[in-house]
């Protein structure tokens, strides 16, 4: 991989994605008690340094690292990643797009991958449904894939630095 990445344990990532209350630290790097994961979800960003408003390609790749075929429910319209600030608060993307609410079943054989590439321009979540669209502040952010594959996953997140 060509860009900076941050490896998190499964439990740490779950806490990050569900509550966004965890602080990212090096202590999250290993957990021998974690259950065997079904998927490794790797996120890459390009470029890893960008101006706010510039298009950043975010590719999220899920690899079936179990010994069984896994059938997942996908929807390529839904945002496949979350952007977290240095306090691990979920700040983006804005997820303004309406999506058809059907799901597509995809079976992934052991060792096979499912990948989604989407764009992020630095747009932030609205503070409330009726508030104005806004962008995140300049700084470093963690971009973590979220393909909604359940709890039994191992996540490799990416970092991106936004400049004014």
């Amino acid at each position: 991989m060509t860009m900076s990445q941050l490896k998190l344990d499964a439990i740490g990532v779950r806490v990050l994605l569900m509550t966004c209350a965890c602080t990212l630290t090096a202590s999250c790097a290993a957990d021998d008690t974690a259950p065997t994961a079904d998927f490794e979800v790797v996120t890459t960003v390009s470029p890893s340094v960008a101006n706010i408003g510039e298009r950043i390609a975010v590719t999220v790749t899920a690899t079936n690292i179990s010994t069984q075929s896994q059938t997942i429910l996908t929807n390529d319209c839904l945002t496949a990643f979350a952007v977290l600030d240095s306090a691990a608060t979920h700040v983006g993307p804005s997820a303004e797009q309406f999506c058809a609410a059907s799901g597509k079943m995809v079976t992934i054989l052991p060792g096979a991958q499912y990948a989604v590439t989407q764009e992020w321009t630095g747009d932030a979540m609205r503070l409330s449904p009726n508030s104005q669209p806004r962008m995140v502040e300049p700084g470093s952010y963690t971009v973590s894939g979220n393909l909604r594959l359940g709890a039994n996953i191992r996540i490799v997140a990416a970092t991106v630095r936004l400049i004014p």
Partner: protein
Amino acid sequence: MQSSRALLLPGLALVIVACSGESPTRPETLLSVTASAPQLEIAAAVQGRRSRGFEDEILRMEAQVAGLGGVWVDEAGTPVVYLKDLSRRSEAMQALRLFASSLPVGASFRSKLGAEGSTAVLQGQFGFSELVAWSRSIAASLRAPGFLSIDADEAQNRVHITTTKGAPREPFLRGIGALGIPESAIVFSESVPFVSATSLQDRYRPTGGGQQIVTGTILCSLAFNVDVQFYAEEGFLTASHCSGSFSGSTGASVYQNNVGIGNLIGTTSLNPAWDRTDSDCRGASLCTDADAMYVHSSDSTSPNWSKRIYSTSTWGSSNNPGSLTISAYWPGIWVFPYSPWVGMTAYKVGRTTGVTSGTVAATCENPMLDSLTVPKVVLCADRATGASWGPGDSGGPVFYPAAQTDPPYAIGIFFGGKGSAFNGSNQCTSGCEILFSEWSSVQWHLSRYFSP
């Protein structure tokens, strides 16, 4: 919920007063059963209708045996028939004997039906076609608390109504009287409320609103089982995009819950192309009046198909998903008599997030779906906020649950949404908004009137 209900009731009363011109009571708005309705049931069966299963066979027999009130097999394996006029017994037996050879039933039944000494004949009071016509009329018109199911009961020669325990009989009897149906034709029984550990994602019969359905690899939810008025057809409604086709093609197989021979529940039948070119389509090549299609049911007999919406053990609101475990169901669904308004509470149920509710935030918008992949516009859709949803909920019913003496109301069909956060179970948990096509748009789009 309370405030919306409070708004609803006065409006409903106004509509009923306007219809009846007198007292605002529902039975007075009912239409009486026409005398020709039983003959129409026989005619439909003779012309090959099979949607009522063996009941259509009985109707075909009644076409040959006037006054036949039912055919069934008792615990000893003896065929039993009801006849209104016992003096025509031998004539009837002869006709049944001829008919038996072509009946799609077991060899033993075929060999005994109509044979002297092998078939019991009982005094009947009503022709079976009368029972079918009356049960259909009651189901279409009568809305009463605790109304669980209705059947033209060939084993009792009566219309059999099942209610919840302790449900008052007066609303039923008033409604039945207003329809001109003799009270002696009705028998009641009571049943405990439906309880099950079954999930909306499991295979379960009879089918109903909110259950998981699949076409190919596309996962969705069933909206409403419906009668197609004036077409003598039964089937169900769901979202059009669940077919995977936007060209108007039909004939796709729909399964509940997963693809499998024993799980086939219907074939897409009405699914107009997404070919609107209105300016509100904003140049999208896929644009439609309503994201809705009608699927013709392959089996609409009562054990497999029922006009009901499934409820789950807990409901979600304020962006929280509900349980997926089926705990009850709502029968006796009415079409919502108004257009939804901003501020009212709307509910939906689907296989991914169960029963959730939100507040209608906008009506008749023209939202663009999947704008970054394959853009498509649904015209004049309504939007509600705060209702959790997830992929696979598409096609689920949007409704207002039964409360006190009010029936459940069918409002529309859920087809899309957005959200700022989803959990690992594909459930929106923050910033959730849902989109739905209203019932009137669905009927307009499909050029049919549906009875849910």
